[in-house]
């Protein structure tokens, strides 16, 4: 290519010939630039997935005394998958994950929306309040877990506040009661992630054209009507994105919860991630864990395809 272009003097080179040459150079560079990312993605997806699939049909464990490549000698056909269907601890962990999600995500959404509405226009002190209200989402989740672990101790600040509010000493053992422990971890999740909802929804709210709201005001719409007929429809895509992000992240809930309760008391706060973690590090039945993990990945992938189509459409709308 370069030999050809070199023989043609610059004056003779017309645009039609120059463009493909440039385009080729661009294509080559583009390919090279994306290569490292492609390799990293492949490294963490394709090969591990195959390995996971392989181990999931065996009884292999790190204690079995043989390398994972010899796991075929422990082939158990699909016993791991049939065990999964009968594993009540798995299903209750899944149910618990769903309960946490159903409580936390709407709570974070409504609180975030309320805050965003308060912050929609300018007022003195806005910037500093905004910065402080966003702080929880930047606190390391494990540290947040430890904060709430301290707060919910039976002689801790939460009970101290309750004592002064009610007038007599309160000594609730939050983290050792099955129901209260679940409530405590949900409080921690809501504390940490409401700011994210607030941030995203405020970004959306600011993007609603002000002249439309003004027009509606002139036409005599009250604040609630303005909100329901103009603001809400305009924010539909943003709301979907915000909810999708929290649903996905909330499904993975681990750090905060595990530091606070370790999944306990008993299995009262054991979510899917905590259950898999315990199987991986305490029971060490890796063949079974691989099967559970794959089952979850398959279900999530199907959900992802739907979500992604939606996201792609919203991106076009926003862009």
């Amino acid at each position, binding site marked *: 290519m370069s030999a050809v272009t070199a023989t043609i003097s610059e004056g003779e080179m017309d645009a039609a010939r120059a463009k493909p040459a440039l385009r080729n*150079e*661009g*294509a080559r*560079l*583009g*390919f090279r*630039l*994306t290569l*490292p*990312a*492609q390799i*990293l*993605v492949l*490294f*963490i*997806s394709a*090969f*591990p997935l195959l*390995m*996971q699939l392989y*181990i999931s049909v065996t009884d292999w464990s*790190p204690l079995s005394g043989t390398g994972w490549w010899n796991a075929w000698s422990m082939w158990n056909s699909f016993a791991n998958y049939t065990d999964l269907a009968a594993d009540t601890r798995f299903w209750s962990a899944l149910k618990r994950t769903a309960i946490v999600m159903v409580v936390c995500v709407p709570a974070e959404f409504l609180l975030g929306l309320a805050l965003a509405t*308060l912050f929609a226009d300018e007022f003195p002190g806005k910037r500093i*309040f905004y*910065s*402080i*209200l966003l*702080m*929880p*989402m*930047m*606190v390391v989740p*494990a540290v947040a877990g*430890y*904060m709430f672990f301290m*707060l919910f101790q*039976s*002689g*801790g*600040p939460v009970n*101290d506040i309750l004592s002064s509010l009610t007038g007599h000493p309160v000594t609730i053992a939050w983290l050792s009661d099955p129901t209260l422990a679940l409530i405590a971890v949900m409080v921690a999740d809501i*504390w940490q992630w409401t700011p994210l909802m607030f*941030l995203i929804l405020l970004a*959306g709210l600011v993007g609603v054209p002000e002249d439309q709201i003004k027009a509606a005001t002139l036409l005599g719409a009250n604040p609630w009507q303005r909100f329901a007929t103009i603001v809400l429809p305009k924010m539909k895509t943003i709301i979907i*994105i915000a909810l999708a992000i929290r649903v*996905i992240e909330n499904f*993975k809930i*681990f750090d905060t919860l595990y*530091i606070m309760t370790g999944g306990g008391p008993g299995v009262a706060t054991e979510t899917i*991630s905590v259950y898999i*973690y315990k199987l*991986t590090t305490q029971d060490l039945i890796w063949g079974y864990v*691989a099967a559970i993990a794959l089952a*979850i*990945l398959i279900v*999530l992938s199907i959900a*992802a395809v739907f979500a992604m189509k939606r*996201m792609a459409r*919203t991106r076009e709308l*926003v862009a």
Partner: protein
Amino acid sequence: MKRSIPFEIFRYAMILVAMTVTLIPILWMMSMAFKPIAEWSATGADLTWWPKDPTLSNFQFVFGESTNNLIVALDRNALKPILSSLLSAVFGTAIAMSAGTAAAYGLSRFGSGQNLPLALIQLRLFPPMAVMIPVMIMWAFLNFTDSWWGLSLVYGIVTLPFAFWLMKTFFDDVPREIEEAALVEGCSRLRVFTRITLPMMRAPLASAALFVFILNWSDYLIALLLTTREWVTIPVYMASLSSSMTGQLYGAKAALGLIAAVPPVIMGIAIQRHLVRGLTFGALKQ
């Protein structure tokens, strides 16, 4: 828009409530970190909200000096976990940012790697716990377990989606006229990228890097699985702090928690403007 006084009062009252709820856990940890043992181990009626007798002994303790004979000095101090957190987060950020920035430019300008956006979002979708078994096996095989570089590599891959998406939205927003002018001047495409575009993108690059750093620094689960003793990170080390005499070492844990919490909070406030883009994979432009 017109303001009514009752609304303003309502607004400030609500913000005050939200600020109180937001700040109580943070302030409690700060207060615990500066309390001497008699105060941080107090419960119920003896609880003190502010340290009456502020001390740095908790910080001294986590760095290996015990000032109280109730608690035996640690056999190892927090310096190594801090170093481990720092090294793995910094190198993880370097991996994610270099691969992510290059790929973002490749896709934004030349349309290469069309599969990446989807693949990278999918990477983010799965619970880390569900993909860690093969990684643990691979890392044991490669002898990467319990090393800061092994941790860096996983961090780099896990945060690659954020680096890529942030940089892609930034590149998409940059007008191409300057690049085209440089091309006409005879610059090669690569030179345009390294000498013209990247220097122009210094500020966005910095915010994306800070954002990725916060994510890496915040990890607990991956470090918990991939490190055992030598290169545990701050959160893992923090969780292990307890003594046979007093049980949970509240003061020391709070001191360490404060050390872990401060950098991301400061960085987060510095890059607030870009947080929405980062967290929504650029689906929302701000």
